[in-house]
């Protein structure tokens, strides 16, 4: 059931908001998935009652009023812990709402709680959370993907109707693919980052996760748009996504970038995604092979830029102003003891890589070189979009893997992001939608759009969803 249907049931009084919210909270409490870090039980039930009272009085309620939403735990919700999956922020309670939270609250959603994630959004499996890993709802021995694994697992398991995640290098799309749900990474600047705990500021973007394409469009409609509190926010008109996703796709040109369909990508995944492309062809879409020739540099470029930005962003965790604080005789000792105790291994590794990449003597060879290669990668996408409307690729190179399988080998974990990081480097929008399965596990199809091309992406995704459901 999607937002529209649940809204109809509320309005027709076939089910109360309180019953629905109680149902979600009971499922969360009984679940073994560990999808949530904090549950807002009391406030969620109070808010639900208020919406029920409104409906009982015959007042008009908006489409999002009473809709249960989960929020990734790196997005600030005033008065509740925002841990970022880290020991260092375990007790941090933000004194303000993120812009996206403020906008959703204005629409009357019910916030169910904060979802589990890789520490500081640094990971692809959710195994790097200080609060323990989240399990995949389809196979509990496997990872849900990361870093928004808690949000995707919650939606996949019926522990939230919809959720917010964040995507720095694939952190919405990969868990959406692994949990069999829909996840959209908007164009950089389309959604405000105000109140999102910074990981890599030139790459981070908040986006929606849901069971259906339409629900992703409904959430995006609310959270997209200019925000003066985010200096990188785009001052561009927000289209009516629900209207624009309804049209035909006949005559559209889809590019299949050959580098995203080559070596290292599971053959069964490629065959499944190719089947999805055939469904679009039946709708009149024209398909052609294209090339993004600098794709082979995407992983090192992404990890050098993201870690350099992270090393700077995470310098604020000093044990003085907020978060964990360990004793020390000098300020320097407080910094070192707090950070050594408070950060997990992967976060330390990335801070070290970023500090190295920016260090005098290495900066030109690593960080500055990576920023140049970023231009090449961005240029590849721009050139390709002169020939095609959208691109289609698998979302992940491998099926959801077993817990513990990659966690001790950082490079093996980084390579899981090979099909998603390019989009972040280029600042483009992309969605992952579920299509088919391999060995009983879901497969994600990634649609990549041009700058501010969310409407086109949603239309193509919706066209496939209508055919397959």
């Amino acid at each position, binding site marked *: 059931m999607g937002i529209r249907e649940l809204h109809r049931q509320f309005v027709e009084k076939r089910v109360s908001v309180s019953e629905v919210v109680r149902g979600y909270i009971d499922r969360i409490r009984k679940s073994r998935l560990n999808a949530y870090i904090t549950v807002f039980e009391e406030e969620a039930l109070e808010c639900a009652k208020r919406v029920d009272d409104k409906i009982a009085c015959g007042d008009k309620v908006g489409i999002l009023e009473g809709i249960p939403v989960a929020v990734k735990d790196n997005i600030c919700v005033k008065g509740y812990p925002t841990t970022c999956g880290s020991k260092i922020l375990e007790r941090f309670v933000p004194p303000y709402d993120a812009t996206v939270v403020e906008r959703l609250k204005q629409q009357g959603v019910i916030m169910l709680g904060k979802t589990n994630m890789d520490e500081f959004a640094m990971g692809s499996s959710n195994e790097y959370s200080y609060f323990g890993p989240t399990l995949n709802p389809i196979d509990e021995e496997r990872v849900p993907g990361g870093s928004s694994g808690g949000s995707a697992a919650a939606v996949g398991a019926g522990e939230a109707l919809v959720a917010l995640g964040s995507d720095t290098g694939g952190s919405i799309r990969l868990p959406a693919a692994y949990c069999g749900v829909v996840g959209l990474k908007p164009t950089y600047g389309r959604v405000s980052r105000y109140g999102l705990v910074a990981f890599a500021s030139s790459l981070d973007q908040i986006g929606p996760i849901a069971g259906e394409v339409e629900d992703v469009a409904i959430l995006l409609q609310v959270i997209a748009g200019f925000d003066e509190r985010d200096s990188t926010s785009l001052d561009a008109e927000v289209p009516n996504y629900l209207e624009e996703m309804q049209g035909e796709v006949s005559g559209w040109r889809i590019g299949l970038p050959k580098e995203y369909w080559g070596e290292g990508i599971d053959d069964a995944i490629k065959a499944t995604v190719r089947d999805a492309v055939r469904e679009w062809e039946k709708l009149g879409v024209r398909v052609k092979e294209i090339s993004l020739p600098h794709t082979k540099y995407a992983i090192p470029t992404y990890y050098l830029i993201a870690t350099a930005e992270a090393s700077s962003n995470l310098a604020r965790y000093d044990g003085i102003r907020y978060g964990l604080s360990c004793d020390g005789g000098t*300020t320097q000792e407080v910094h070192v003891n707090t950070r050594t105790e408070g950060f997990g291994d992967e976060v330390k590794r990335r801070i070290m890589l970023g500090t190295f990449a920016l260090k005098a003597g290495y900066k030109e060879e690593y960080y500055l070189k990576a920023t140049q290669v970023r231009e090449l990668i961005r240029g590849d996408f721009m050139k390709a979009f002169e020939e095609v409307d959208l691109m289609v690729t698998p979302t992940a190179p491998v099926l959801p893997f077993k817990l513990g399988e990659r966690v001790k080998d950082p490079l093996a974990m980084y390579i899981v992001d090979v099909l998603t990081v390019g989009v972040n480097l280029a600042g483009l929008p992309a969605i992952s939608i579920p299509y088919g399965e391999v060995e009983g596990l879901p497969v994600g199809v990634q649609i990549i759009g041009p700058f501010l091309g969310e409407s086109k992406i949603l239309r193509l995704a919706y066209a496939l969803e209508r055919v397959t459901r």
Partner: protein
Amino acid sequence: MVDEDEILKVSRLAYLEFKGDQQQAFIAQFRKILEYFAQIRNAPTGELPVHFSKASLILREDIPGKSLSPDEALANAPRREGTYFVAPKIRWARDTSQ
């Protein structure tokens, strides 16, 4: 290959400490990752400019607005005194190796 001393210098710059076996394991992983990253040296960047945001510095109008109260701003402080954060005396250890 980046030597061990250099990696330890980086850890001091990052205000992180690694000890014993953990240090050796970390150094081995760090080197392996850097070796993989070094492939970007081959990327044909020529005279391309380095990529920075095209946006100019964006500042709002200098008009007083609603902001956090001192109590709200200090609510998460590990140690506070009145409206101040409390920190140990700033006394840096001498380190000539950096």
